[in-house]
């Protein structure tokens, strides 16, 4: 149904009669011209009268249409796209707002951020509702958070809650939020006018979350509006990763810091600086291509032993939250290893690692204790723990050991004659179930070792120039039901597992089938014993029990990163606020969680034994939102599986399109284009009629001597 925004202009339609009037006036003009003879005029007129009438008719039609199109364009006809009730403004609306809360919404566009624009748009939409209209709001973060879950007529309350919102520190997924909004609109079936408004920035990432969205479930009579706020081609640079080389950093050893940068927008130069312990160590200029990533390497001079805070910083841009990447550098003075067992059981191990302890370059520091003294030892301070015929152990100590392994420690278990088969049963971290202790007959005692996983970092150095590994084995552990992730690294006689490995938590458990002394085999006397013992310690140190940095999270398993933390420990955020540490029981074990680690920076930990807070965690905002690659707007309907999505770039356009959708669409612009086309057609046709006829005198080719045709 049509109506006109400026119907006053319709009076100008009278002007459409002008061509007809002019034509009539011209045809009735009574100018009399004497002519030599009208004989040929009569003949010509009889031939061309029909054509002239048709030409005149076409010209009249084009000129009349031109005037009519101009008049209609200025009158601005509107096509009413909704029903009569909408026309009378009596239709009640239900709108669901999906608000992108990712931290990329903090992108600054001049004085305000995209988030500010989003809130303003949402508020403007809600303010445009009438008394019987209802609204619900869902926040699209990593998960869907309902701000106003049920459709509500409380506009003031909703606006107030919106204005107090802040963007989250994580990514956003629009698909689940759209599903929640769609479900909310389904509750009232009588409503005829429903709208889902997705307010986001132009980033492509949130649109990758529609895998579970079924467009067929879209509520009836619903229209989806998408507001892509912000700038069309945002620029952002942020450090996204840091790698430390070597992974095990000893004191007085330089460290290479590899930095990865993510970039969005046009090519530009970026200054990257590295700050360690509050002092700028280095500064680099990096040329980033158009939207390309960049990498650079810094070198940190030798640091003293301990944990050092550091961060990579890029110049402040329009998204300053991700300009800094905090990390920790842990340097060790030595590689501490703990050997638990009797003097006899640990003799060869002490000799093997004690020899290394004299070598300052290896840095191995071995401490030997008896199993009774195990409870007093801070296990987390050791890179590797050897249990040499130390079983059986009390359950509490077993739990401590397992926590140690879960937190990234390496446990090497050497069996011994002191333990029975059932003493291995309480251990949940072992590579399998010990079924028996097998005594070998004399004829079978000579065993040939075979490397089943020769590329394993533990075994790789042992393959060089040591001859055929052969040993005499009197007894060994018998295994059944190996754990799924267990690897048999070395076998004896290609059948008996000799060295077994199982990852457990963030650590590893290695079990050998023979004892660490000569009671079970002569392996301690073999040339493989000493390098294998060294490899255990080195492997443990480089296993990554220490994490340089973490991403913001709502829950962190503390034991995996801070093995020394207990329920009595205090974890503080960069602002000094205390972070709650909650303990829970998982599969019979007590685990510690830190919750709501959303503030980027260095978190400190203090324990009763070490009351001084020390750097414990480096938390950074997840960098997936740093990639501000814009979404291609044409792809949005396809990603949502919808035929029509109404897109807008700013608040004004959004409100105008809502108005157009509800009331109608003006055809003024289209009519102006039509008028232009008709004007061009009239000009071309008119010129064609005038220019189309060559003059007879030119056609005849009369020469200066009067000869016709030039002949």
């Amino acid at each position, binding site marked *: 149904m049509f109506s006109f925004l400026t119907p006053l202009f319709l009076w100008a339609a009278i002007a459409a009669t002008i061509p007809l009037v002019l034509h009539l006036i011209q045809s009735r003009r*009574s100018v009399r*011209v004497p*002519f030599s003879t009208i004989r*040929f005029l009569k003949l010509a007129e009889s031939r061309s009268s029909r054509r002239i009438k048709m030409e005149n008719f076409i010209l009249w039609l084009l000129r009349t249409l031109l005037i009519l199109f101009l008049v209609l364009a200025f009158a601005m006809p509107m096509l009413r796209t909704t029903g009569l009730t909408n026309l009378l403004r009596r239709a009640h609306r239900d709108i669901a707002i999906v608000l992108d809360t990712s931290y990329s919404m903090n992108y600054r566009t001049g004085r305000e951020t995209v988030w500010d624009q989003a809130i303003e748009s949402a508020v403007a939409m809600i303010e445009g509702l009438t008394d019987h209209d209802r609204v619900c709001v869902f926040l699209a973060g990593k998960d869907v958070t309902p701000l106003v879950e049920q459709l509500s007529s409380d506009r003031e309350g909703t606006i107030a809650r919106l204005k107090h919102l802040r963007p989250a520190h994580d990514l956003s997924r629009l698909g689940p939020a759209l599903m929640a909004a769609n479900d909310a609109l389904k509750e009232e079936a009588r409503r005829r006018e429903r709208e889902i408004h997705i307010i986001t920035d132009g980033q492509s990432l949130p649109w990758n979350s529609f895998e579970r969205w079924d467009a067929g479930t879209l509520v009836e009579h619903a229209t989806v509006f998408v507001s892509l706020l912000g700038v069309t081609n945002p620029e952002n640079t942020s450090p996204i990763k840091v790698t430390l080389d070597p992974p095990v950093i000893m004191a007085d050893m330089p460290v290479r810091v590899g930095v990865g940068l993510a970039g969005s927008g046009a090519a530009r130069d970026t200054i990257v600086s590295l700050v360690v312990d509050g002092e700028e160590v280095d500064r680099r200029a990096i040329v980033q291509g158009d939207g390309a990533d960049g990498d650079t390497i810094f070198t940190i001079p030798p640091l003293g032993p301990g944990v050092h805070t550091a961060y990579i910083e890029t110049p402040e841009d329009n998204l300053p939250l991700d300009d800094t990447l905090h990390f920790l550098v842990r340097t060790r003075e030595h590689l501490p290893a703990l050997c638990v067992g009797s003097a006899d059981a640990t003799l060869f191990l002490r000799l093997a690692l004690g020899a290394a302890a004299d070598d300052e370059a290896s840095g191995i520091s071995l401490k030997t204790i008896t199993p009774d003294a195990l409870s007093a030892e801070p296990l987390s301070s050791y890179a590797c723990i050897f249990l040499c015929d130390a079983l059986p152990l009390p359950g509490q100590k077993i739990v401590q050991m397992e926590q140690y392994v879960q937190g990234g420690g390496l446990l090497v278990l050497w069996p011994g004659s002191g333990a029975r088969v059932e003493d291995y049963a309480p251990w949940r971290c072992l590579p399998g179930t010990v079924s028996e202790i097998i005594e070998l007959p004399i004829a079978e005692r000579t065993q040939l070792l075979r490397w089943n996983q020769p590329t394993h970092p533990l075994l790789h150095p042992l393959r060089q120039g040591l001859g055929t590994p052969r040993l005499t084995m009197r007894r060994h552990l018998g295994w059944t039901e190996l754990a799924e992730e267990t690897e048999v690294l070395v076998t004896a006689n290609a059948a008996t597992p000799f060295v077994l490995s199982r990852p457990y938590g963030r650590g590893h458990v290695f079990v050998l089938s023979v004892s660490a002394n000569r009671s079970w085999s002569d392996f301690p006397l073999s040339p493989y014993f000493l390098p294998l013992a060294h490899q255990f310690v080195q492997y443990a140190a480089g296993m990554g029990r220490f994490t340089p940095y973490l991403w913001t999270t709502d829950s962190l398993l503390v034991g995996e990163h801070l093995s020394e933390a207990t329920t009595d420990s205090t974890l503080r955020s960069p602002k000094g606020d205390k972070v709650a540490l909650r303990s829970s029981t998982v599969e019979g074990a007590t685990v510690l969680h830190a919750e709501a680690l959303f503030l980027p920076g260095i978190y400190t930990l203090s324990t009763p034994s070490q009351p001084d807070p020390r750097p414990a965690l480096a938390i950074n905002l997840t960098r997936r939102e740093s990639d501000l690659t814009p979404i291609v707007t044409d792809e949005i309907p396809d990603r949502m599986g919808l035929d029509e999505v109404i897109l807008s770039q700013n608040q004004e356009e959004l409100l105008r399109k809502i108005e157009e959708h509800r009331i109608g669409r003006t055809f003024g612009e289209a009519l102006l284009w039509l008028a232009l086309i008709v004007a061009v057609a009239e000009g071309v046709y008119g010129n064609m009629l*005038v220019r189309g006829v060559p003059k007879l005198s030119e056609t*005849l080719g009369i020469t200066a001597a009067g000869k016709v045709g030039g002949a």
Partner: protein
Amino acid sequence: MAKSNPDKKKPEKQAPQKSGIAGFLTPAEMHTLGRLVLHSRYVVEGNLTGAHRSPLRGASSEFADHKAYAIGDDLKHIDWKVLGRTDRYFVKRFEDETNLRVYIALDRSHSMGYGSNGTTKYDFACHLAAALGYVVTKAKDSIGLFLYSDKVDVKMEARNTFQHLNNMLCKVQEFPPDSTTNVAEALHQIAGGVHKRALIVVISDLLDNEEDITRALAHFRKQHHDVIVFQVLDPMELDLTYKYGCQFEDMETGEIIAADPRGMQRDYERVFGAFLDSYREACARMAIDYRLCRTDQSVETFVRAFLEERKRLSK
């Protein structure tokens, strides 16, 4: 109510105040034209000895043929070499050379009074007649005049004096275009009045029945006259370049027709082109020299180009 035609300009050039030759030709034009000669493409019969070939045998040095001697023939023309070879008497005969008699048939019908650019067709025709007459008289040939409309109004015999030419042009000035046209009938009358072979120059717009006019021209050719047809037309008649629709009034019949010239221009040119083609083709068939004259061109230039071309073709 009739209004004045906006496309038709008032004649800038008024009728010549001077009479006779001076009314049409300037001294400079006469100087230029005096060097030119109008040649006949065929033999003509004149009264005087001249530069043109005659159908008669005469006293020129140009051998024509032999004839058997008869009593009364001059003995000095006996070909003695032939007598020696054949023992028969033959008399040598020579071609005669005579002067050219040119008759100008000038149309003074009402349609000749049309002119869109200040010069009427009749003005142009008179100017052309004066130029040709001057060329003919200057060459010691004779010039005569037939002034006609629906009949022959004025007839002046051919003479070769400038006085005669002057009188002839004075007579032309006395008769402005008037009366209806009947070109064919008038041309038949002229053909009946010229007995000896002559050069007939027809100056007319030929806006009459083309078949009748063609038959009249054929009458000339039947009498062995050399004929030149100058069809004088106004550019507006050729191209019909009126911009606005108006009522056209026939200058001879007074009939009126309302028409849109711009819309009908294509068909008009087609019809008028066919009309011109009919004359051109008929004249080509009858070996008549047909020329189309536009009134917006210079008479002097036209005459000079025409005569030089004709001279070239006569050789």
